[in-house]
Each structure stands twice: as C-alpha cells, then as structure tokens.
C-alpha cells in the first residue's frame, strides 16, 4: 500500500498520516479479471452485452467487443447482468456491531464539535456486518460519525479488506454537520390535562446559539487557514479540518429533515459558500421546486418510513424521491444504518411504484452519491479508469428476488459468503432430530 504524503508533515503529524492515505490507491493485488458475456449496465448511457476488464483495481475496458486479455481470470456472466456496485451514501457499518451493546458502538464521540475525527480510525474490518451487506451488492459506503453539531469526518470505504487501509478510498471524504433544528423538543404533561411545553422562543434561542457556534467554527477555519499560510498558526487538528471545509476542499454532509430545517441549512451553506449535500431530507418534497432552483442535492434516508405527522399522506416517505426527481433535484439513497445496509436497494425500489423512475432509483444507489461528493470521476459507472466496484446479478438489483452472484470491490473478486449463509448451511445440515417425548 503506497502512501502519497501530500502535505503538512510534522506540523499536523497525526492528522497528516490519515489525510495521506492514498487518494489514488493502488491495490495490493495485480489480478486481471474479464467479466464476459453479461449485459453491462454502465449507467453512463450505454447498456450492452459485452465484457468488462478489471486490472489493478480499476476498470480498464468495457464494451461489446472487448476481448478478455491473456492471463485474465474470466468470470462468465453470460445471461447475467453487470452493474456498478451499490454505494450506501451514509451508514454506520464497521462502527457498530450490536446496537443494544454500548461498548460495540463507536460512531458517536462526545462533544458537539469534532471536525478532526475520522471514522476510519474506528472501523472494525472484521465486523460481521460487512460480508452481510456486500452479499446483497453493496460495495462501498460512507461511514458516518454521529452526534453533536459537527460530528466529524465520514470515511469512504470499500466493503472488503483485511485492514482498514485495504478498504480505504478516502478517510476524509466529507464533513458531517448536523444542522441545528428549530423543532421544539421536550414534552411534558401538566395537571388536569394541561401541557407544559418549552416555548418556541426558548427553542429559537437555542437554535440561534447553535448556529452562532457553528458560524464561529467556520470563521475559525478561515482565520486558521490564513494564519497557517502566513506561518503563524501552530498545529491544530480541529482547525486544520475546518480549513478544508471552508476552502471547499472537503464537501459537507449537511443533515436536515424538516422542511424549515432544510431551508435553513441550504441558506446557511450558501452563505458559507461550502460544497455540500443535504442528508436525510424527509420533508424535502414540500419545497422541491425551491431546492431545484438552489441546485440542492440530497442523500435521502430510508424511504420505508412512516409519515412525519398524523395528517400527512400515507405514502409521504415513499413518494418523496419521485417528487424531488420530478422537480429536478438530484437524489441518492442511504440507509444510515449498519445491519440494514443490505436493504439499500429496497429503500430505493420502494419509491418506484410511488413515482421515481426505475433508472433514477438505480442511479440513486450506484452513481449519484459519488457525483455529489466529487467522486464521479472515480466511481459510480462502468467506464475505463473507474474503481472496479462491480456486481454480477441474475436480474434487477433493486428487486428482492434478484441474487448477487459475484462482486468486485476495489478490483478484487470478493466472496458473497457471510455469517448468515454459514449458519444457514450449518443448521440446514443438522441431522433430523430424534424428538424427545
């Protein structure tokens, strides 16, 4: 594994090491694969029966008339379908093992402002969740930090590797900011049926304080960048990270769900002139046209979700994606989960009968998030030069009954074996029990 140490060695030692981890990774194995005879869904405008050649972690050729190079390991996909691997644009995979057991959870650090923390430093490569997720065609994900306002940096990982270094695509792929919300929290009951509640004024005050803090961190990043350029700033891990955000080097995953919260987040991001993508967006449909005008891109959370309130239409969450698409808002999908990462295609598929075109749903789990995060030149389609994250299926990957037969992650052919399959095979082979009594 080659490291291209790009900058600021010494001054920001610890951070430097992390930042340095290969932006253009060279994968250890130099195996060449030729996936032949399948219907190749490139998601780059062409679908054809042909061959994809993978070498050194990259797609080197894809076309109807491409020949398998000599010495390549041939994967016969005749009658099958080849797609880009699915990208869960937000998950906790590798950061949590058993939800109810706190000590297995590493996604949420203390504090409200933790811009320097990277999830790659906590990802457990041997988690059982990864093989389970990729068996359903998920090849890479943004592993998100949780909690607070600036939650930390999401790391982009491929779902295969003996170590996190082998999985790494970009440890500092995006900054996660949970934009402060104006939704009133806290409910209570008074005597005789009355309700005690936090007044809106209190909520508003708290919101303004939080936004002011966030602004201060952004401003801090700007000042730090100037001071550092002038050689007048010492190493500061937090500020180093913020400087990348204000410099538009690092995109921001800006979490907001309520209609007003989304508006506020977008207005704030525009004022701050940052690169950003809204995440969550459960009420985005209410302002779809406004979002389109503002060129807002959204990574949607689980669509299999109840409506936000008692009066909302039953299919509010199912129809959200279709309405946004129709208005011209670019969308992608994420599970924001760990054990459920494998259900990513269904979160997208659920929106199809409720208005999202099938192709758009596919793009939403394969291509769009990569483009939103500035990774479009490296992943998301089957084109030469792209990272070889590919799946071979017997049908539409959004359909439940479709099986993922083969998958390639960072150019390596990866098994679909996992804990679940192993237990299934083990207990399926249990001898017929002589039943007592």
């Amino acid at each position, binding site marked *: 594994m080659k490291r291209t140490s790009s900058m600021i060695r010494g001054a920001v030692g610890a951070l430097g090491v992390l930042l340095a981890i290969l932006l253009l990774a060279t994968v250890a194995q130099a195996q060449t694969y030729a996936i032949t005879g399948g219907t190749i869904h490139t998601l780059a405008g062409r679908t054809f029966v042909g061959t994809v050649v993978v070498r050194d972690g990259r797609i080197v050729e894809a076309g109807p008339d491409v020949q398998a190079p000599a010495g390549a390991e041939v994967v016969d996909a005749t009658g099958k379908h080849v797609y880009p691997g699915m990208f869960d644009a937000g998950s906790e995979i590798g950061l949590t093992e058993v939800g109810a057991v706190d000590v297995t959870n590493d996604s949420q650090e203390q504090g409200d402002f933790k811009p320097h923390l990277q999830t790659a430093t906590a990802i457990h490569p041997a988690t059982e969740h990864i093989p389970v997720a990729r068996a359903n065609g998920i090849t890479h994900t943004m592993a998100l930090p949780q909690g607070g306002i600036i939650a930390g940096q999401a790391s982009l990982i491929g779902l295969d590797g003996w170590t996190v270094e082998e999985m790494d695509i970009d440890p500092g792929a995006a900054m996660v900011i949970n934009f402060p919300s104006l939704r009133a929290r806290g409910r209570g009951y008074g005597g005789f049926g009355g309700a005690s*509640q936090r007044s809106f004024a209190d909520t508003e005050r708290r919101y303004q304080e939080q936004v002011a803090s966030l602004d201060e961190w952004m401003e801090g990043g700007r000042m730090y960048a100037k001071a550092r350029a002038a050689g007048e700033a010492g190493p500061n891990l937090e500020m180093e990270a913020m400087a990348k955000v204000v410099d538009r080097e690092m995109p921001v995953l800006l979490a907001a769900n309520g209609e007003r919260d989304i508006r506020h987040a977008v207005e704030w991001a525009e004022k701050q002139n940052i690169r950003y993508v809204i995440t969550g967006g459960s009420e985005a449909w209410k302002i779809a046209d406004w979002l389109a005008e503002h060129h807002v891109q959204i990574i949607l959370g689980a669509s299999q979700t109840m409506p*936000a309130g008692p009066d909302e239409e039953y299919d509010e969450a199912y129809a959200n994606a279709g309405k946004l698409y129709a208005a011209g808002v670019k969308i992608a999908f994420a599970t924001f989960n760990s054990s459920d990462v494998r259900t990513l295609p269904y979160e997208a598929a659920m929106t199809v009968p409720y208005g999202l075109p099938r192709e758009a749903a596919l793009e939403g789990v394969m291509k769009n998030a990569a483009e939103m995060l500035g990774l479009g030149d490296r992943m998301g389609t089957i084109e030469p030069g792209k990272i070889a994250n590919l799946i071979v299926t017997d049908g539409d990957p959004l359909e439940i009954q479709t099986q993922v037969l083969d998958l390639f992650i960072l150019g390596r052919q990866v098994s679909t074996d996992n804990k679940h399959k192993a237990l299934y095979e083990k207990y399926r082979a249990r001898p017929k029990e002589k039943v007592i009594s």
Partner: protein
Amino acid sequence: MSHRLLMPWITPRGLGRVGWTLVLALLAAPAAAHAQPRPTRPDAPRHFAITGARIVTGAGQVITDVTVFLDNGVITAVGRNVRVPEGAWIVDATGKTVYPGLIDALTDLGHPPARSARPAASPMGPFGPQAQIDPSNYSWGPEDRPGTHSATTAADGIDKADARIGQWRNAGFTTVVSTLDDGLVTGQAAILDLGDYERGRGMVVATPVAMRLKLQDRTYMGYPQSLMGSFAYLKQLYLDAQYYDRAWKAYEADPKGKERPEWDGTLEPIRDQLGSQYPVLFPAADRKEILRAIATAKVMGVKPIVYGAQSAYQAADVLKEAATPVVVSLDWPTPPRNGDPEATPALETLRFWDRAPTTPAELQKAGVVFAFSSGGITSASDILGNARKAVALGLSKDAALQAFTMTPARMMGVSDRLGSVEVGKIANLVVATGDLFDEGTRIETVFVDGDRFDVPEETAATRGPRGQRGAGADSAKAATTPVEMTANTGPYRSDAVTLIRNATVMTASHGDLTNADVLMRNGKIAAVGADLQAPNGAHVVDGTGKYVTPGIIDSHSHIAADAINEGSVNVSSMVTIRDVINPGDPSVYRALAGGVTIANVYHGSANPIGGGNAVLKLRWGSDAFDMLMAGTQEDIKFALGENVKRDRNPDRYPATRMGAQDVIRQAFLQADAYRQVWDAWNAGDHKGVEPRRDLTLEPLADILRGKRWMHVHAYRADEMLQVMRLSEEFNAHVRSFEHGLEGYKIADELAAHGAGVSTFSDWWAYKVEAYDAIPYNAALMEERGVLVSINSDSEEEMRHLNQEAAKAMKWGGMSEDNALNLVTINPAKQLGIDDRTGSLDVGKDADVVVWDGNPLSMFSKPLQTYVDGVLYFDRDLDRERQAALEKEKAALLERYGGQRGDSRAAPDRVAPRAGKEVIR
C-alpha cells in the same frame, strides 16, 4: 373575596370600598390574635324575603313578581302572597332575575393542590413526572392497593382558606361537588355549600355522593404503570370488594371455626358503595374513552358518571344508549401561546379546539343527561363565560341552566334539597341583573344556606369567554358554527356485492388463477374462478393486469393501542390490549394502504407473562369493540430473554433466563390451584363462599384448560426449547414463538411441539440475542415443517409485509406460493382464524387486496383493500379524501391561524429508522 354579609342593613354600595375593608379588618382581628373565638355575628333570625323578582326556578318554570322567603337556610315560600314576618331582611329584587344557586359538578374546592407535596425533580414516567423512586412505595400488584384513597372523603379536612371558595361564590356558585385529586381512586366526593362557616365541615351537604376515579396517578411507583393496568386494577379492586363483602358476611354470620378474612380499609368504603349504589366519577374525554369507561364500570358493578368529556359530541349516541350521565368540563381548549409560528397543529387538535364547545349542544340534542364543571378553569368568571360559548353554539339557555342546577343535583342524589327554587330546598340562590347566559349580566347577590353574600362589582362575572386568556375570545364570537368535518375514517364504498374481474388471483390455498374473477357478497367470498357473472347491482372492478390476494395478516403488531407494556410486575396477565384499543390510530389506515386487513396486537415483552392480545380487523372508523374480530381467542403474550431480564429500578425479578422460566413455572402452579378451586365451584361444589376472582390467574388457568394459547416472545433457541418443555409439563401449548430468530436451530423440536414461529424477514444484530438471526430463518423452518409467518412488530414494516415475505424467496429459495402464505394463511393459522380468513376461498371473509403488480415484487403496490367486502382503501379515492381533509384543515387554520403552534402535536420525528423490536 366577598364576605358573608353581617350587617345587611348597610348595603355594600353604601359602605364603599374603604368602609368594607375596615369592617373586614375588624372582623378578622380576633382570629389573627389566636384568642379563643368569640361570636362574630349577631344571632338574629336568618329571615330573608326576596321581593319583586322574576324567578327562574330551575324546575321548568319562570314566574314573575313573586317573593321568595328564606327561613334559616331553607326556602319556605315562593309566591305572590307570601307573608313576610317582622324582622326579616327585605331584598328588593325588582327588575332582577333569581336563579337557583349554581352547582359546579366537579372540583377540588376546599382542597387546594399542595404544590410542595411533589418532589421538584421527578423522573419521567409514562404519564409525565413520577413520584421519586421509593421501593417502599412500590406497588407490586393490585393487592398493594396503589393510589387507592377510597376511605378518604372530600368532606374531611376542608381548607376554608381556599381562595376559590369566595371566587366561585361571587361567580354564582353556591355549591360544588368537591373531590380530592390524587390517586386512581381519589376518594369520596362530597357536596359542599360555599358559605362561610365557623368550621369547614359546616359546608358539607352530603357525602359520599360519588367515588372519583382517575386512570393516571403519580403518587406511587409500580403497578399499574400503564393505562391498561389502570383498567385491570379498577376491575380487580371492585371484584375484590364484592368478594370481601361475601367473605365478611359469611364470617360474621358464623365466625366459629373459620379463619378471619383480612380486613382491608380500602375495600370497606367500596363495599359500602356497592351496597348503596352511588356512582363512580370516571374520566373520559372522547368517544373511545367513553366507551371504555362504560364497559369497565359494567365489570366493576357500578354506575358511571363520565367526566371531562369535552369531545363527548362524538359519543352522544352511546351515552344515550347506556343512559350514562356526563359532567362536561367547561375548560374549553385554546391554542397555546408561545407556539412555533410555522408548526401546523394536527387536524385532530384543530377539530378539538373547534368542536369541544359544541359538545353540550350535541348532548342536549341527543337527550343525554349532562352537568357542567369548571374542569381546570382557574378564573371563576370564565365558567359562565364558557357556558355562554356553548349557548352561542346551539345549547338552549334552559339546558345550560339545568346543567348547572337540577342535573348535577340529581346525579349526586341531592335533588331533594338542591337544584331549584322550590319550597323545602336549601336556600341557595343567585340574584342577577338579567339572563345568566347573556353577555353583560351581572351577579349581584348570592345566597348560600340562607346567608346573603353581595358580590363586589369588580369581580362580577361580566367578562366574555376566556376574556384575558389570549386565544379564542375574538374567534369565539365569530365562530358560531364549527368548520364542517370531512370524514377521515370509514369505508370508501360498502357494496353488498363486488366483483373483481380478470385479474391474476393468488389464492393462498389453491395456487394462482390467471384471468380469474373474485366475487364478494355480504362480506364473504362468494366465488373465485373464471367468467363469473356480475349479479344485478354488483360493483364491478376491472382487474386486468392486476393481482388479487387475500388480505395481509400481521400476526404481531402494536398499532391501535394506547398502551403496550405493563412492565411494573413480572406477571401482568390481568391486563389486556382489548381495554386500550385506539381505533383512530392513523397507522390503521396506513396499514390498509399496505394491504393489511388484520393486525394482531400484542402486549409488549417487558415481562415473562404479559397480557391479553386483540385480533383486529382493520375496519377503519369503527369503534374498538367493532374492530375486534368477533369470536377470537384472547391469548396471552409471554416473553423471554433480554427484554425481560434487563436492569430495572427497583430491581425486578427475574434478572436471568433461569428466573424467567421460574416466573412462568410458578405462575402456572398458582394458576393450576386457582383452576381447581374454580372448576370445583363451577361443577357445583359450593362449599364456603364463592371464590375470589383473580384477573391475573384467570387467563393463565384458561391456558391450562386449553382455552387459550401461549404466544411467546423469544429469540434464542435454548430458551424456546425450555419454555416448550415447561408448557408440556402443564399440558399447555405454545401456539407461536414471536420473532423466534433462532428458530432455525431447533426447527424439528418446534415442529414436534406444534409451535409456529412468527419471525422477522431480515432484521438482526440490534441486540445480542439477535446476533445469530439469519434471513434464511423462515425458509429453513418451513422446509422442516414449522408453521411460519412473517410479522412486522412495526407500524412501518407492516405496510410492506408482502416484500418481507418475498425475502424468504431470496434467502432460502422459498416458493412464491409459500412466501405469500407467510403473511396470509399461515398467520391466520397461528391466530386460529384460518377457518374464516387468510385465503381466497368461498365462504371466507372477503378480506381482499388488489395490487398493481405481483405483490412479491418491490415494484408493486396495493390499489384497493377490502375488509369483509367493504372498501377501506383505494388509491384514487384516497387522493380525493386527502384533498378534502387538506381543505378542512386550511379552513381551521384560518380560524385559529393567529394562534397556531402546538408543539405537542407538531411532528417531532426525524427520519426514524426501521423500528427494531426493542422495548416492545
């Protein structure tokens, strides 16, 4: 505060404010000095003659120019030629109107809430702040008589210094029904006259007149912790009082050789109540709660008076039918201040604001007996003001007066002495400048027990409804009619005959039929096959290109329930979901939109033995009891594993899987003894008194009798095996394991016991006992002969159970037919309703879904859902209804727009994740 007029020859007006202050100060002086009290009033005859008045008697008559004579607290004459004795005070009421003294039918006057009694920082319980955890005050079951203050009466300990006494009197109230406010049984209500007496007890007119109940209480920890626990407890309490009466009667008749029954101070007064048949005051706000109150009181063996009841307009028919009287709280809801200006209150909240004041008029129209109470009103002048609002919305003035006078007097059994201006009654009167229910009328003088109180002008009840409380005042005047309501529940169509034509029909019993028809008649499936004839008048649905399946059955749900867990105790089989069904839960409609026609609603998994279940047909818009599928068994939910044994405060047994098994075994042993006692009694062996009914053991005894089944929440294979063996010891039967995520490890044992498994499709790893969960579970168990269903345990997951079933095809290669069975006929079998529903067979209930494609595909959705042949969901008609509802909401928002913002009702959900079974 006004004062009893001691020198009536000096009119208050003549004396002036300064003079009055002086008089009051002088009178108050002796008390302040803590000297032995000396008489403070002359012992002159209390003779008053009110002359020249127009009298609204409250007994149906209005008489003018008459004299009312009050003799030592009693009305002794009403008429034109009344002889007034010498020395009587003459009150010239010419031009005035005299009314009977008003009665506030439910208050805690005389018992002001002790604000310091509750700890400042209290832990949050299900109903809000709870009492500090004090294990010695923890209720471990009904026998601990939690919050049961049945022996206390509001006649005792009256605080004469309660400032409201004078305020209420100035507002025309001579009498209140006073109650204490803490407890599930808060105590005996008393009728108090709001005079000024040397001692508080002088106020008491009658006690006990009612026993007041509440369903939430914060004065204890533990059982009951949930709404369904409260219902179970109240039933047990009254059943216990009945048994108590039997036991003591038998003992006292012949104590020799008998063990003495346990004396119980909480049961004694209830025993008396049951003997003299005075009513309970039962809280209930709306139709759902009113139905519950009536049903519960029936089991308790008492007559209920429903109180609160602001949305009783929804239930006028049932109140009339049950002849249940109502005390309507006049504390009309108003939009909260300080709300979020962008938040939109829920339609239900808006309707409540708009409709509550129409309740009295609706009750009057239906002939329901109702009285008024101040509810939570703190400003006495608002009471009449709010009644005027009801009058503006159609309540007759006479009915309004009745609700303040004769009706409460009758309800409380004191109409022989209160409620009207008639000879012989207590001399409680109001002298007003005009009609009480007209704006601007002033109450000038109030007589209580024949004592005269003049009302200082500045406190007179002349203000409009809720004058200063911000909301409502202006809008109330404008809003004389409520905004028209759109039906948001109920069927879209209910045709006697419906024919779905030319669809792919997946029968769940005899394979798929293409280009086939389904005929539904009178709620049943009348025919399934090709080329069926449409009878005259049949509603015909074109099924071309569509799929038809049986309704989806979710065998494990928690929708439509106002409580889930009674986790305070380890055995809570006395509680049942049936007591807390909430038919208006929007999840019901949303489930219909996902093709679900039946949901089995379970108690949660907080304890080894939970409570009774409710199999609901999702007849959206029905009452709870009509939603309950008739004839279904009330089974008991058990639970094992992590949810049961987790840490609790205070510690609750069990903390291990050993303990969980032990709790069940011990409970079965007790239930077996109970069963024997009752079986003997029912067989005619009537030695001694009829045994006590124990609502905890009754359902467990039924399990041992084979009349109910066990449904056991469990994850791990080992504990499933253990509980099967345990049940076999008692000849009981585990009908299904709920979740059973490790069922695949012991599929053969499950099949041999005959236990079905209702599992999740692919959830795993959210807790340790779910770490070996595999999506192949359903397919593997099915392969080895286990009856398997897929359930949701989640209001979201239940909306796409068809997809969850399809996952068994992907993971384990189940056939399409068998996969569909996982959510149709198989859960029907597990619930014992497969003879009536679950497949498309002639004679079964017409529970049918029309899909726009193969339901085992991700790309299909339900278009129509029928329950009993009635169309409860239709994708197109849904859009129309939604548009109408939005229109209604817009009209309501316009009316309450300036005040909107209800953070209670505002949605506060931020993209919740797929609900994992955790606490449930």
